[in-house]
Every structure is written in C-alpha cells, then in structure tokens.
C-alpha cells in the first residue's frame, strides 16, 4: 500500500509546477519555499497523520465531555444544597433551593409595571435581566414545585439557619421550618432540627413505618401468595375433573379449610399492622412553610430532614451517602421520580446476565460449526453474509419479532399447556424477562458469531495438526486445543454483545419492560426465579423519568444519576469480563509454541 502511495504523492507536485509555468507568472521565492515544505509534509504522509490524529482527538473530546457532563450532573444531584429565602419587592417571601439562573429579555408589559429606577437599570443592561429558578417544593400547598424569580423582583436574599429541607414519602420535598411534633400524646415544640429528641423520635417513627411496610409486603404478601395458589389449585381441579366428581369435592373442601386458615392469619396480621398504623398516624409533626401555612403529617412519612444552611461538610457527606444508599437499595416513589431504582438496577443486571447465558452457547456453537466443520462454499458464505446483515437490522424489529413470536406464539402455547388455570391472565404469554433476554440474544448473536469465528481462525494450524497427528479426533482437537486458545477472543465478542445489550431500550419496550414492576423477578416462593415476570430497566427508566414524568424539571437530576449508574454498571460488567479474558490469555500464553 505504501508503495502505491509514494508515486502518486510525487506526481502531483510535478503537475503543479508545470501548471504554474504555463500560467506565465513566476512564483515568488517565499511562495515556492512554502510549497516545497508542503510537498515534504505530504510526502511523509503528515497530512494523513494529522487527519487521523485529529479525528481521534475529536472523538476523545466528545466522549470525555459526554462522560464529564453525566458525571458532573449525576454526582451533584444528591449533594445537599442551601435554601435561600428571597424577599420580593411586593413583600412576599419565597424559599427554595436555587437550581439554575438564566438571562432573559424583559418583556414590554412587565417593564411597564416596574418602578423607573428598575427600568433604567434594565435599560442600561440592554433590556436584559437575570432570574433564578428556585425549587420551592411544597407541592401540596402551592400546586407547583419550581418558581422563577427575577433579580429585579428581589429585595433581599438570605440563608437563614433554621430553614429545613424535609424529604417526604409522598408529595415531594417540603421547604420550611420545623414547629413541633407529637410524642406519646403530648406536643413537643422544637426548633433545632439537630436536637436529639426530634432525631430520636424520627428514628422510632421511621422504624415503625418500615415495620408496617414489612408486615404488609412480606408477611401479608406471603399469606396472599398462598391464598392465591390455593385458589389456582381449586381452579385447576375444576378444569380437570367433571362437576360432582369426588376429586373436585375434595379440592373444594380443602380450599374452604385452607382459605379459612389463611383468612385468620390475614386478619391477625392486618390487625397488627392497623395497630401500628394508628400509632404511626398519631405521632405527627408540624411543618411551617415560609408564608406561615402549616402542614401536619405523620413523622414516619419523613424520609430525611436537615437544616440546609446549617450543615457542616461531614454532615453533608452523610446526607449525600444516605441518599445514594436509598437510591441504590430502595424502590421508586412518586411515579418513579423519587426514591430508589433497585428494581431497575436488578432488572438490568439480570437481563444482561441472562442474555450472556443465551447468547454465548448459540454464538459459539454456530461459529465452531461454520469454521471447523462446514465445507467452505457458497452456502456458508451466504450464511455468513446473512449473519452480518442481521447486525444491521433495526433493534425495534427484533422487539416486534420478540413480542409476536416469543411472547404471543411460544408463550401463548406454554400458557395453554401448563397454566390453563390462570387464563385469561397470561403467564408466559406476555412480555417478560425470559422473552426480553431471548430477544436481546437474537439481537447480539451476530457479534458473538463473528468474534468467535475470528478467534477460532486465529488458532495456529500447526497446533491442530499436532493434535491430530497425536491421534486425537477432530472433536477432541476442538475441545482441548482449539477452544481454550480461542476463549479470549470469544470473550471479546461476549463483552461487546453485553455492552450492546445492556444499553438497548427500544426492543425491550415491546417485550416486557414496564414503568412499574412492584416485584423483583426473584423472591422467596418456589421456583424462586420468575422469568415470566415483567421487569424494570435502567435504560427505560431514563426515558420514562426524562420524558414521561409530571414535572420534567424535577426529573432531570434523576435522569443524569440513572445514566451515570447505567454507564457505571456496564463498565463494571465489562471490566469483569476483561479480567477473566486476561486471566485466560495468561493461562494459555505459556503453552504456545
């Protein structure tokens, strides 16, 4: 290739010179000098070097700035921000976390209502003014949770030490002051949010709240689960045996007995939960917003509270950590805009691992056949071309195929055969983790096939021949000589497939990802792993919070944080795979000829 390039490079300057001579103008010595320098650079291939290097650096800058943007916004989301109290020119007060500022052109209508000196000030500024967006919270009182305040509306701005930010189980944050709380039937007035008594009361109330939730979710959940399976058992018996038969009567009797048993258990548990609930509702806390309006609610519904302008660095770090912990280990609240993302995180990891479990054997077996056994000819070439083309099919098409073939056809048949008692509500006949993993496996299998084929081809012929010469059969050669040495290359293919699969969203929306899946696909009931359940996914979560949530302003930080987590997750999975690959490489490095 280099040989081809040189003559053409030298030819073009020659043509240039003749052209100059024909034109009749003599080039000045300086121009000539520059020309020659250029020729030299060109001859050395310098422009190409610059082009390639430039392209690389542009790519790196773009990737880095994207990662930095996500990192900056994602990491800053949970850091406690101060609360400003702004006194407006009309005397009213606004309290909130300053979230961003912008410059805007003041409209004529607004300008006309302003005092002359403000007008002059704005005019001196070219008709522009600044404004700040405050996150005022208190949606239940205001009907809004963000508010723009222009600088010319602001008379004073301060950061009082007693302003408290309350994160609540419902209704989003509350910005205001702590007034009092009820403990054992008596009202305790408290102003210092760090005071031991309120902290202790909060801890107790919060524990009680979590206890109620455990009773409701885990214990009552268990009773309901068994009750449901009894009901299904009866349904099954009714489907199998004719009306009036002995078996059906026995099943009915059993159901009545069991139902009564679980009913009693349910009533016990719910009485316990009710009792706790009464305590929970009796211990209230009174919050006062900046305008003096009060809000009374159970202390246990406050997730976290801190005086935003009176926290030192260590306390901030503690709040930051506890928010991250909640984010990673809790379920979403308030239609996914608050709380944690555990189900989505779990769904993404489970989906990716399942994808690997499906895609690796498929891809590797295909590659071995294509490379080792198939007679290289037109048919095999056609298969190869088809495989490569598969990689170019839009992913949504795979989604349509997944829902049509896997969920409706295969899943529907499974339901009819094995779960008739649950019909018409589908078990496997709708989108779920299993179908999503299979769809993604189809989507990524070309990557694995191509990479595995390359890896198999790279194993030296001498090794195969050596093995065959020692009397090993073809399969033994593949199994003990070729495959181990090709493993690192196959792993590369799997890593690529994983990265592609974990970031894919479009097909998942059709085959089982939902906005809210209250249960993880894994739990304490037989068969423990429920692959038929629909699940949540980080990628879809990002789309949902960013574009479907009520207040897109409030959702924005969550989008960045979730994106950060998704990138981090893919990084961790890739690093694990790379480590395994390197270990394999080292293992076989010594045994090469």
């Amino acid at each position: 290739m280099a040989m081809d390039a040189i003559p053409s490079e030298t030819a073009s300057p020659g043509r240039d010179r003749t052209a100059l001579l024909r034109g009749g103008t003599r080039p000045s010595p300086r121009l000539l000098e520059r020309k020659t320098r250029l020729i030299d650079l060109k001859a050395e291939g310098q422009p190409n070097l610059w082009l390639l290097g430039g392209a690389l650096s542009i790519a790196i800058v773009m990737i880095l700035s994207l990662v930095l943007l996500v990192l900056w916004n994602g990491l800053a989301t949970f850091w406690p921000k101060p609360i400003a109290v702004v006194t407006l020119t009309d005397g009213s007060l606004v309290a909130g976390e300053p979230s961003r500022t912008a410059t805007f052109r003041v409209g004529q209508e607004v300008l006309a209502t302003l005092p002359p000196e403000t007008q002059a000030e704005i005019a001196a500024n070219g008709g522009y003014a600044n404004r700040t967006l405050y996150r005022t919270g208190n949606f239940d009182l205001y009907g809004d949770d963000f508010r723009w305040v222009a600088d010319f509306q602001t008379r004073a701005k301060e950061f009082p030490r007693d302003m408290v930010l309350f994160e609540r189980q419902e209704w989003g944050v509350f910005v205001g002051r702590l007034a009092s709380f009820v403990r054992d039937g008596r009202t305790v007035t408290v102003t210092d949010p760090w005071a031991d008594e309120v902290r202790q009361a909060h801890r107790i109330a919060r524990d009680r709240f979590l206890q109620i939730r455990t009773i409701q979710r885990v214990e009552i959940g268990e009773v309901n689960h068994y009750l449901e399976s009894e009901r299904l058992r009866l349904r099954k018996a009714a489907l199998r045996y004719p009306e009036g038969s002995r078996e059906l009567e026995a099943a009915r009797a059993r159901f009545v007995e069991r139902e009564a048993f679980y009913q009693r258990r349910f009533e016990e548990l719910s009485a316990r939960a009710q009792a706790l609930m009464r305590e929970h509702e009796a211990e209230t806390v009174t919050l006062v917003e900046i305008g003096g309006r009060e809000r009374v609610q159970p202390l246990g519904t406050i997730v976290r509270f801190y005086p935003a302008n009176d926290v030192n660095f260590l306390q901030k770090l503690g709040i930051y950590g506890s928010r991250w912990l909640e984010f990673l280990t809790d379920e979403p609240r308030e239609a996914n805009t608050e709380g944690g993302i555990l189900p989505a995180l779990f769904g993404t990891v489970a989906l990716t691992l399942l994808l690997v479990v499906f895609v690796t054997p498929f891809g590797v077996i295909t590659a071995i056949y294509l490379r080792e056994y198939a007679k290289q000819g037109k048919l095999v070439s056609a298969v190869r071309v088809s495989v490569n083309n598969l990689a170019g099919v839009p992913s949504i098409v795979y989604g349509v195929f997944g829902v049509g073939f896997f969920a409706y056809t295969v899943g529907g048949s499974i339901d009819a055969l094995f779960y008739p008692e649950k019909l018409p509500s589908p078990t496997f006949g709708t989108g779920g983790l299993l179908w999503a993993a299979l769809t993604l496996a189809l989507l990524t299998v070309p990557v694995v096939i191509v990479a595995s084929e390359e890896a198999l081809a790279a194993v030296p012929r001498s090794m195969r021949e050596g093995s065959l010469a020692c009397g090993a059969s073809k399969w033994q050669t593949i199994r003990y000589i070729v495959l181990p040495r090709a493993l690192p290359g196959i792993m590369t293919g799997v890593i690529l497939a994983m990265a592609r699969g974990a970031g894919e969203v479009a097909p998942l929306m059709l085959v089982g990802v939902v906005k809210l899946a209250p249960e993880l696909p894994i739990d304490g009931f037989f068969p423990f792993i429920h692959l038929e359940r629909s699940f949540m996914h980080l990628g879809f979560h990002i789309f949902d919070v960013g574009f479907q949530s009520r207040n897109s302003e409030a959702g924005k930080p969550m989008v960045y944080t979730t994106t950060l987590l998704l990138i981090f997750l893919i990084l961790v999975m890739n690093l694990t795979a790379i480590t395994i690959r390197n270990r394999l490489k080292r293992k076989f490095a010594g045994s090469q000829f």
Partner: protein
Amino acid sequence: MKKVLLAGIAAIALSSHAFAQAIQIDPLLPNYTPVSGISGSLKSVGSDTMNNLMTLWAEGFLAMYPNVRIEIEGKGSSTAPPALIAGTAQFGPMSREMNQRERDAFQQRFGYPPAVIRGAIDALAVYVHKDNPIRCLTLQQVDAIFSKTRRGGHPTDITTWGQLGLTGEWATRPISLYGRNSASGTYGYFKEVALFRGDYKDQVKEQPGSSTVVQGVASDRFAIGYSGIGYKTADVRAVPLASRPGETCYDATVENAVSGDYPLARFLYVYTNANPNQQMDPLRREFIRFIFSRQGQEATIKDGYFPITRAIAEDDMKAMGLSFAGN
C-alpha cells in the same frame, strides 16, 4: 377583550403566578378501607397522559394489597380498546372517550358495552414559553394557529405572534407548533374540541409524550403547544382560553374546569370490562373503589389533575353495579 388583557397583565406581570391554593377533595368521598383476600394481577394498557396517574393509583393500591401485581403500559389512548377486547388488560385508561367504532368492536366481542370510570378531571392547557406576553386566546384563534382547515371560523391563518397582537420582537416571529402524536388521546381531544374536527397543520412537531411537548415549548421561546395541565413546569405558562371571541378568558384552574367555563376541560377515563350479568371480580372492584376514594383522588392532585366529586363517582359505580359500601 382589551379589559381582560389589562387585568391579566396587572395580575400576572410581576410574579408569574400567585401561589395557587391547595385543591380540595370532595369531603363526601369515603376513606378507602382495605378488605381481605385480595390478590392476583392487573394490567393496564392505554393513555400516556394517564401513565403517571395510573402509577400513583397502583402505588397507593399496592400499599394496601402488597401481593397484588399491577403492570402499567402507556403508549397512547388508542392502544386501550384493542387490549381490552383481546383481554390482555383489565383496565384501559383513556384521555378521550371511546369512539363509536371502538365501542362497537367491544360490544360485538362481548355483547355489552364497556364500563367507564371517570377517574379525574384534566384541563388540557395551551402552553407558551414563560416569557411570552400573550394574555388570552380564543378557541377560534387556537384553531387558526394549529389547523389548516380553520373550521372554527377565524378569517385568516395565524402564523406569527404579531397576528395575535404581540408587539416588539414578537411581532414578526413565526409561531412554532408542538403537538402530540396521533396515537394519543390528547391529540384526538384537541382535534375535536379546539380544531372543531379540522386537520392539523403539517408544521406541528409531533411529540411522543406529554412531557416532551412541555419541554419543547420550554426550550423554544416562540413556541406554542398543548398538553395536560399536570405536566406544567415553571418554564411554561398555560394561556387562559375563551370559547368565543368577546367572551371572558378563563385560566386552567380547578374551579373553571369543574364549572365548565374553561373550554378544554375533560374527564380522564378508565375503561374496563364489566359484564352486567356477573359480579365483578374482587380485585378489580377494589381497584375501582380505590380510584373513587379520598386516597385515590388525592393521587389525581398529586399528578397535577383535578379530583372528581362524589356524585360522579356514584353515577359510575352504579352503572357497574357497585356501591361505596362494598359488596
């Protein structure tokens, strides 16, 4: 209209809005009390406008019945009737009424019409950028902005802000249009009421979600778009609307929506399959009772919509053979 304009300027000029009062729930709506033995799974397929509302209802319901499974899919109101007919979903939230064809298809399959739950009230808002000084629009103007057929009767096509009486830098600026995609019930409702069943202009940028419309308007100073009132942010403003030229403009508030003064107020519906000759299964019955309870209606406020009254709830429940006392 001039007077209204001036009054509007005085009221809204300084602070973009006075702090809205908390919306009250009809005190006659009952508190929801859980009953025993509820389990199983529910699936809801339908409106994207009601996606969050359904999620909030589901969250509230799950807090009472932890072992119920609820799945929510929201790709547009038009996806609800097929899902109900095929039986893949028990509930079909829709931001518009089912049309005759969808109703007929349902009736043909089951022999009875679908049951309807009017779960919340929404004021479909026409949003502009927060700096936009426009004070009032009539439906005829809205029609002339969004529609190429102008069935509303406005004499001329409106393409610039100047034609709506704005001055200064706004006068010559073209109006940039944001709307919903055609699967959405919001698209259908807006077409029917604001466009007088006319056709949308080709320039309308069709967005995949209610929130995307608001984000589009928030980032484009000269934009106008329509979306549910629940999706309002601090970056956009809902324009007061009048139903006819010369009439008073009404804000998209709960009072105006309930009284019917605000021209784009609508119910948000949840359709379900209720066989009149059979008792409804306990799971669905309880979910409906939950929607019509104090807790369920609190969720509508939480999502930015307006709660319904006990009278509406009683009507709908009676039609399904249910009552507040439980059965």
